[in-house]
């Protein structure tokens, strides 16, 4: 993968823009009837959060580490999406969320294409692609209501089995809601339940 990440994903360098993975995640969560208090982690442009807020009665909160993303998500919001700058689900209270939706940075890091900008933070998940997903899975159970669910987008490049195993170690069972194949990866939306 010597080609530049920015070239593969378009020219935007500060905020990840909606792509196939965003559409797939939004559609899967909506088709599954996502409702209640919903947090989208790592919202980027705010697209998925806004789709959910527009199509449901859910109370939607979007978070991102990136201040530029927080700004875009706030500008995009037409249906009451609230924005919080946060690291994963750290500033949420125990047991309050009905759903957590996450399209994580999942590409294995490639030193040849390292960029050291916000787009790299949005795309890459460390050496194995799971550097952000793993701590997320270890903490998300804390913030979910007893019947709460996680909607997580994973790629074949990240290793779906490793993600499912980590979720299981945290007491979750996983169901694949959607699959979609692309030239260099297959995307899957997992629903995690306890």
């Amino acid at each position, binding site marked *: 993968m010597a080609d530049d990440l920015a070239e593969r994903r378009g020219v935007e360098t500060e905020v990840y823009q909606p792509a196939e993975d965003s559409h797939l995640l939004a559609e899967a969560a909506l088709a599954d009837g996502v409702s209640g208090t919903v947090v989208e982690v790592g919202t980027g442009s705010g697209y998925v959060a806004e789709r959910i807020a527009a199509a449901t009665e859910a109370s939607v909160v979007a978070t991102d580490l990136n201040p530029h993303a927080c700004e875009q998500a706030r500008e995009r919001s037409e249906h009451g999406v609230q924005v919080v700058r946060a690291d994963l689900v750290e*500033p949420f*209270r125990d047991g309050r969320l009905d759903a957590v939706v996450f399209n994580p940075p999942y590409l294995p890091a490639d030193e040849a294409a390292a960029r050291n900008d916000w787009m790299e933070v949005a795309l890459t998940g460390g050496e194995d692609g799971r550097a952000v997903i793993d701590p997320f899975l270890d903490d998300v159970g804390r913030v979910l209501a007893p019947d709460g669910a996680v909607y997580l987008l994973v790629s074949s490049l990240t290793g779906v089995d490793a993600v499912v195993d980590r979720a299981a170690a945290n007491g979750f069972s996983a169901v694949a809601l959607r699959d979609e194949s692309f030239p260099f990866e297959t995307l899957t939306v997992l629903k995690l339940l306890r």
Partner: protein
Amino acid sequence: MKESMMDILCCPMDKADLELEVDHEDEDEIVSGTLTCTECGEAYPIEEGVPNMLPPDMRDDVPA
């Protein structure tokens, strides 16, 4: 942010309750203010409607 967000937010470090101080309010939204942890005393700023709930060591921009 709307005041109802206080129901789901806590201090990112010790998960304790937060106290809200409003500087500027718009119709149904808190535009600026501060959320202060009732346990450790850390203050989290609300600016342009967005609470910054990053721990102090993460507040500076992440990429170089």
